[in-house]
């Protein structure tokens, strides 16, 4: 996958598969600490510690236990190549939180990509989930919560053209509104100093 936003879409699908009712996605870019962090929190069925171990290892995951396939190992590898890592906290019956972080300026870090497209995709394809998207760049933040929108729509599906336009514009303009000034991107292209073995 070529974008972190695509990985996010993939990871969030795991939460949907875990029958989550509420899923929160946080994307946090900070140029001062030079980190890029993404968190997916759900209240789905959760996993035992053994299952958590299995989903991060592509060689242990088997077809029969398959709830998650290659998605998580791929993202973990991408993060570890960028002085970062991936962590899963999960409790059966409570839910799962997946956190992945990167050195933001690392030369191998994938671009964030089209977050608005990923979010719109999730809203449309899993309408029964309550979605919260929280995107931060340094001190600016855009939060999208679909609960008031669903209430206003009162059963009218998201895929009606006028509603689609509304959602798309809301997501695109919200993400656009927190984009960095050029002066905030001083350490953007730097050479990685250290790689984890």
């Amino acid at each position, binding site marked *: *996958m070529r974008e972190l936003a*695509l990985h996010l879409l993939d990871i969030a699908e795991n939460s949907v598969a875990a029958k989550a009712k509420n899923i929160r996605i946080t994307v946090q870019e900070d140029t001062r600490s030079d980190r890029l962090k993404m968190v997916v929190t759900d209240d789905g069925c959760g996993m035992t510690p053994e299952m958590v171990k299995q989903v991060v290892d592509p060689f242990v995951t088997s077809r029969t236990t398959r709830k998650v396939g*290659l998605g998580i190992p791929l993202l973990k590898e991408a993060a570890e190549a960028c002085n970062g890592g991936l962590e899963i906290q999960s409790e059966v019956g409570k839910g799962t939180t997946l956190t992945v972080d990167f050195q933001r300026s690392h030369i191998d870090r994938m671009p964030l990509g089209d977050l608005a497209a990923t979010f719109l995709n999730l809203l449309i394809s899993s309408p029964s989930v309550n979605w919260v998207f929280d995107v931060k760049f340094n001190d600016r933040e855009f939060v999208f919560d679909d609960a008031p*929108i669903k209430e206003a729509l009162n059963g*009218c599906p998201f895929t009606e*053209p*006028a509603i689609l336009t509304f959602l798309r514009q809301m997501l695109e303009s919200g993400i656009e509104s927190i984009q960095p000034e050029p002066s905030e991107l001083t350490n953007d292209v730097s050479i990685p100093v250290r790689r984890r073995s």
Partner: protein
Amino acid sequence: MSTVKSLEDLKKLREEALQKRSLKTASGQTQVIVAMGTCGIAAGARDTMKAILDYIESENISGVTVTQTGCIGLCEREPIVMVVIGDQPKITYGKVHPETARRIMKEHVGAGKIVNDHVIPM
């Protein structure tokens, strides 16, 4: 097109959308399903989905339900899109990149004509 901002605007949109939809769905539900497993996403399913949504927006098509499914075991043929119109049998399409997605929306969803060169026999 002007930007819609408030929830009040959204409620107005809802009324219009529901009116249009009730006219349309009387002739049978149309369902478009995009496979969104890791394989599908890696093969470009998000762009396929986006092309379908953009088509619905730009052509102002009411009454189509767009939804998703996971990996259906045909990873090498991703991106996969399925179309169900009314009680007709489900048609499964493979290698549906945005251009093909627009064709399926136009010819199959719009005019009821199956896009034969991308059909996966099930």
